[in-house]
């Protein structure tokens, strides 16, 4: 059986995270903090009790949605890093929709329209990168990166001028959404419904990619674009649709941030869920279900920022160092698949060598 492979795909990521913890522990002791105390605090702040785990869940929700923005196009062989931009335009569109409707519709209807507005805006944003890729051969990594900056400038422009709420003094913001239109918390928790959006989106994305003909076509085109063209697959249409879906997920993340956390659009929209999502996607090896788990891990790391500052007197940038170290080691662990002798299958069964999915590379 293939148990060695399964064991490998469990042991390598877990081992990588442990190695990242060890490196971070060394870093902590170098700067004079007790690593075990720090680990204890992170654990307590992130996963220790139901009450603190909810903080983790709140941060994991937008990461799940944002990671799909990289993970879906990756199956087509595209490296999209426009998560931040799609998130920002999604948030802006959702706020505009929410403010325009106001209270003339029941809250559920307003929320649905806000979600749709966010998804459409994000979808157009990343879909454009896909279209440029297909029609003009513009490198999608670079164009989506540029679109991030354009989106942030658009946010600053609208929030600082045309859409500015005169009452927001220190931090320019749009007018706040009506309180009834905000996404509520799930019953009995402090966690908003956005988490459910994230989970559903990841599960749907998994089924779309792994279990449908559409997903099969996308993966074929991602594996060998020439073969896909010869087989008559509509590569251009696939590229644009997958990119638009990916952008829609990040746009929905923006809507969730606006409608459940911020209550208005302001510069807090680009707090790093975009770039965090890219790393989640790569660490999950572009598997949407894996992205759920990795999002929880990263959400936990982000949630522990406050306690490190309070009880260990470490600056809030400590979580960035931690996140960076863990991801560097996780990325390295990708190169170890099929290299460690223990996980190698016995050469007796003459099955063809299994092909590990290659990480996509920009052209």
């Amino acid at each position, binding site marked *: 059986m293939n148990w060695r492979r399964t064991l490998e795909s469990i042991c390598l990521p877990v081992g990588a995270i442990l190695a990242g913890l060890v490196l971070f522990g060394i870093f902590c002791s170098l*700067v004079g903090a007790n690593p075990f105390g720090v680990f204890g605090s992170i654990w307590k702040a992130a996963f220790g009790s139901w009450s603190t785990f909810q903080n983790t869940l709140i941060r994991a929700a937008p990461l799940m949605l944002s990671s799909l923005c990289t993970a879906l196009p990756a199956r087509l062989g595209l*490296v999209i*890093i426009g998560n931040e931009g799609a998130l920002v335009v999604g948030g802006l569109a959702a706020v505009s929709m929410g403010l325009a409707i106001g209270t003339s519709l029941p809250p559920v209807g307003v929320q649905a329209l806000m979600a749709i507005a966010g998804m459409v805006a994000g979808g157009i944003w990343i879909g454009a990168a896909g279209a*440029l890729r*297909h*029609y*003009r*051969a*513009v*490198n999608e*990594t*670079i*164009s989506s*990166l*540029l*679109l991030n*900056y*354009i989106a942030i*400038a*658009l946010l*600053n*422009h609208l929030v*600082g*001028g045309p859409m500015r709420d005169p009452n927001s003094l220190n931090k320019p913001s749009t007018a706040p959404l009506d309180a009834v239109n905000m996404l509520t918390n799930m019953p009995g928790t402090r966690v908003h419904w956005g988490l459910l959006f994230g989970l559903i989106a990841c599960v749907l994305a998994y089924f779309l990619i792994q279990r449908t003909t559409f997903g099969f076509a996308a993966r074929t085109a991602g594996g060998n674009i020439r073969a896909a063209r010869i087989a008559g697959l509509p590569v251009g249409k696939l590229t644009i649709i997958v990119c638009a879906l990916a952008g829609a997920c990040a746009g929905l993340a923006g809507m969730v941030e606006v409608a459940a956390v911020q209550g208005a659009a302001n510069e807090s929209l680009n707090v790093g869920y975009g*770039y965090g999502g*890219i*790393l989640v996607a*790569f660490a999950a090896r572009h598997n949407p279900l894996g992205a759920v788990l990795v999002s929880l891990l990263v959400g936990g790391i982000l949630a522990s920022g406050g306690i490190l500052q309070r009880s260990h007197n*470490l*600056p*809030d*940038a*400590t*979580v*960035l*160092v*931690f*996140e*960076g*170290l863990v*991801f*560097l080691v996780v*990325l*390295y662990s*990708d*190169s170890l*698949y099929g290299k460690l002798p223990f996980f190698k299958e016995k050469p007796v069964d003459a099955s063809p060598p299994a092909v*590990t999915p*290659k*990480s*996509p*590379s*920009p*052209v």
Partner: protein
Amino acid sequence: MTAPAAPEVLGWWGVPLAILAGMMRGGTPFLFVSLGECITEKSGKINLGLEGTLLTGAMSAYAISYLTGSPWLGVLAAGVSGVGLGLIHGWLSQQPRVNDVAVGIAMIIFGSGIAFFLGKPFIQPSAPPLPTIHLGDWSSIPAVQAALAISPLFVLGVAIAPLLKWFFQSTRWGLFIRAVGDSPDAAKAMGISIFNVRMLSVVAGSFLAGIGGASLSLYYPGVWTERISSGQGLMAVALVIFAKWNPMQCLWASLLFGGAQALGPALQSVGIKEGYYLFNAAPYILTLLIMILTCSPKRTLTGVPGALGTDN
């Protein structure tokens, strides 16, 4: 960032003056990171992590300048910190199945984490800045004098660009880098170690990017804060494409981007407040438009290294 010149004396003349100053001030970090990215990409690797390198460089330069009192030691420290991050990127991004874009983003997070962590104590104190070369002393207007006070780092960057062009065109080592970037198989047949050449290219590129960071914290804006970089490190990647992987065009492109960055604040200071942030987006929109116009599905970009971003 505030407008460098005080145009109330000069009126509308302040706008071109501010743009000129912006070219030389804001253009300096662009120049160093884009030359660094150019070396890296010529060898066939992409380094998105230069944003982290820039921040670490800015922090190291400021901290060392404050602690030792010598800004030039700070510049050196910035370069050395860049080398450190470059070694990580160069090694990790060459492992099998490891994507260099992903490593770059992890390096942005790690580099900015290190910079903010170690730089926390240096936000308050003021470090000795680099001396400036006063080209504007002929004028009695202080705004002109301020705008034409240029940094020796800018001069250094301007000197490196043609040097780098000569290096790629006419030296053995330049040929090695181009061979590795264009056709790794041919390079291997020549007996060149692809790993070593790429490693050296990434490290050299990160060294330059670190110095670009030093120009941020020790020259303009000349302070160390966590928001000192407005994405110049990430922009470098777009800028190198814009410059078609040619060091001399990197110089012109950096001046253009630096000037474009100064356009928004300059117009704001003469009373045009509308669209301030949209002007800030000008370089990005410009790059995107140029890519749309120059790319085509029928041919590859001129000057692009053949193996750029591929797995081999």
